[in-house]
């Protein structure tokens, strides 16, 4: 592997808090200028991993390399990282300018250089009019900009974000998300971004690492994660509403379940079609056709509408097909009522099959 190409490399990382094993044998390689998102449910170890990379926690075992240097034992300030926290963590008694320059003063950067860098960061983030204010006199969005600025002035290779937008309201979150993406395009730094917001993950990431219980379940591009989830956990985690799952048994290309016998001819198996195994079939709500369009699909089912959730742009409906519940995404103009009959159908190319026992993709 070429050290120049990789910005951050993590090898066999373990972190235990006493008997609690938070990170276990974690390996991760992040390319120069890559935007990596760590996604996972609460408590899966995302912040812990980020703190390890930042040097704020001592690792139990393993190595961390940043920019080709082994920084496993290095101080946080010597690692070439900048970090942005969920709670902003601005120093309340310092002005915005003081907040931005604190790290540079500690690093004994000359005064005029500090002024230059603060001015540049303030310009990039459009916080110039706020430089003389204290954090208490800023709005949430402005505070988060200052927090990003504090990482920006340090001129580092790697930015670490720990859920930077989760304290903001929906509108501001969307705005700042776009700004962070633009910032990444302008600066070209490596960014590691923790979130449990799928939309943030899908829109920002070059690659997403889905974590569970201190392990990486899948590390891939957003489209790969969406289209070819490696296992049941990833499949259920990504997508809203979640993927519909049907338990059954697979024999060659024949899937038998309460829905009846379904031929999955056309599904791209990872290895080859297994002989016979208990399996789970998954299909996303947006990949289910309904009404007239269902007739074109290789797999067709009759169903009854149970529940309708109009969202404006589209409508979600929970339907019942042979006793199995399905969520279906319909056009926003659809006029359905509970009790209506609705033919549904889908294409085997769009389904996902998982081994029931190992939960791995088939």
């Amino acid at each position, binding site marked *: 592997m070429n050290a120049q190409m990789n910005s951050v490399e993590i090898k066999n990382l373990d972190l235990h808090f006493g008997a609690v094993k938070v990170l276990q044998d974690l390996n991760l390689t992040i390319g120069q200028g890559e935007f990596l998102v760590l996604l996972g449910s609460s408590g899966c170890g995302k912040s812990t991993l980020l703190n390890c990379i930042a040097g704020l926690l001592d690792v139990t075992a393993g190595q961390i390399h940043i920019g080709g240097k082994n920084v496993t034992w290095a101080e946080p300030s010597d690692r070439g990282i900048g970090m942005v*926290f969920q709670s902003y963590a601005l120093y309340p*008694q310092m002005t915005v300018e003081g907040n931005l320059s*604190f790290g540079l003063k500690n*690093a004994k950067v000359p005064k005029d250089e500090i002024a230059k860098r603060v001015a540049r960061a303030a310009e990039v983030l459009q916080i110039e009019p706020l430089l003389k204010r204290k954090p*208490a006199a800023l709005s949430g969005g402005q505070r988060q900009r200052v927090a990003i600025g504090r990482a920006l002035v340090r001129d580092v290779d790697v930015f670490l974000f720990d859920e930077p937008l989760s304290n903001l309201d929906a509108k501001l979150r969307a705005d700042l998300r776009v700004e962070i993406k633009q910032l990444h395009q302008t600066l070209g730094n490596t960014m590691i971004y923790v979130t449990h917001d799928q939309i943030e993950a899908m829109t920002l990431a070059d690659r997403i690492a889905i974590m569970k219980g201190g392990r990486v379940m899948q590390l891939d591009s957003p489209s790969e994660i969406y289209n070819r989830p490696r296992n049941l956990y990833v499949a259920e985690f990504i997508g809203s509403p979640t993927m519909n799952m049907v338990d059954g048994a697979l024999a060659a290309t024949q899937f038998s379940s309460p829905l009846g016998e379904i031929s999955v001819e056309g599904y791209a198996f990872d290895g080859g079609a297994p002989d016979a195994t208990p399996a789970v079939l998954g299909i996303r709500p947006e990949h289910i056709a309904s009404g007239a369009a269902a007739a074109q699909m290789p797999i067709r089912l009759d169903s009854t509408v149970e529940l309708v959730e109009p969202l404006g742009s589209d409508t979600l409906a929970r339907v019942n097909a042979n006793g199995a519940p399905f969520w279906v995404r319909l056009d926003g103009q659809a006029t359905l009522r509970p009790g209506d009959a609705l033919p549904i159908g889908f294409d085997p190319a769009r389904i996902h099959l998982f081994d029931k026992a190992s939960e791995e993709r088939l």
Partner: protein
Amino acid sequence: MDAVSAHLDGPQGPKPRKRFSRNNIIIYGILGMVALYYLLPLYVMVVTSLKGMPEIRMGNIFAPPVEITFEPWVKAWSEACTGLNCDGLSRGFWNSVQITIPSVIVSIAIASVNGYALANWRFKGADVFFAILIFGAFIPYQVMLYPLVIMLRELGLYGSLWGLVIVHSIFGMPILTLLFRNYFTSLPEELFKAARVDGAGFWQIYFQIMLPMSLPIFVVAMILQVTGIWNDFLFGVIYTKPDLYPMTVQLNNIVNSVQGVKEYNVNMAATLLTGLVPLVIYFVSGKLFVRGIAAGAVKG
């Protein structure tokens, strides 16, 4: 009024509160009585300290002074006899000042750094250290009195002001460390992490990040220590010698002196003088305290 609200009537606006409800009368009655109970002795002291001896001998302790005199106050401050010398409480006052100021500063300085290290740096053995310290808070003083005498004697500090300062600092340590540790633990941890990423070290974080956010807890610690040390009697008697006795010990010597007539007015004035410092501290820092909390409450 439109059609919808035409038929809506009944209560509106804020709910009226009865000023003289039964509950209120009971609550204020009890509060008033308790306040009176506590204020009465104070009243008697102030009144008595302003009377001359002839007036006191008439025996009416609740009566206000017929003729106000400040003679007892002057006497208590500068003339009353305390054992060997007869220069009043003034000597004890200055002794107490010289004991209290360094003790408060030293104990708070050390305890705040202890608390900060325990809360934020989680060094190896921090929990054990903390447990031992807390245990120290529960050991009765009596057990440690004599060993400390020996230790101070070996250090050559027995009977000196600095010896007493050391004793006060040691005994203040457990509770103050606990106080500071808990306060620093309650500050957002991410602030500390951000400062570390910004390259600040142990002392830089302490002085530049933690201290400016901790005014309230420093005021609390100061109130605790000033009143505690000023009011101390036991350590003052044990670890100093008569020239250096703190004010409380001198007060005792004045009030309990056996020769001559009991000068109640002087005794009352002396007692009030001794209690003045904690009283002033409460009044002054009470305001500071509230302001400190308000300043600290602004989230970063």
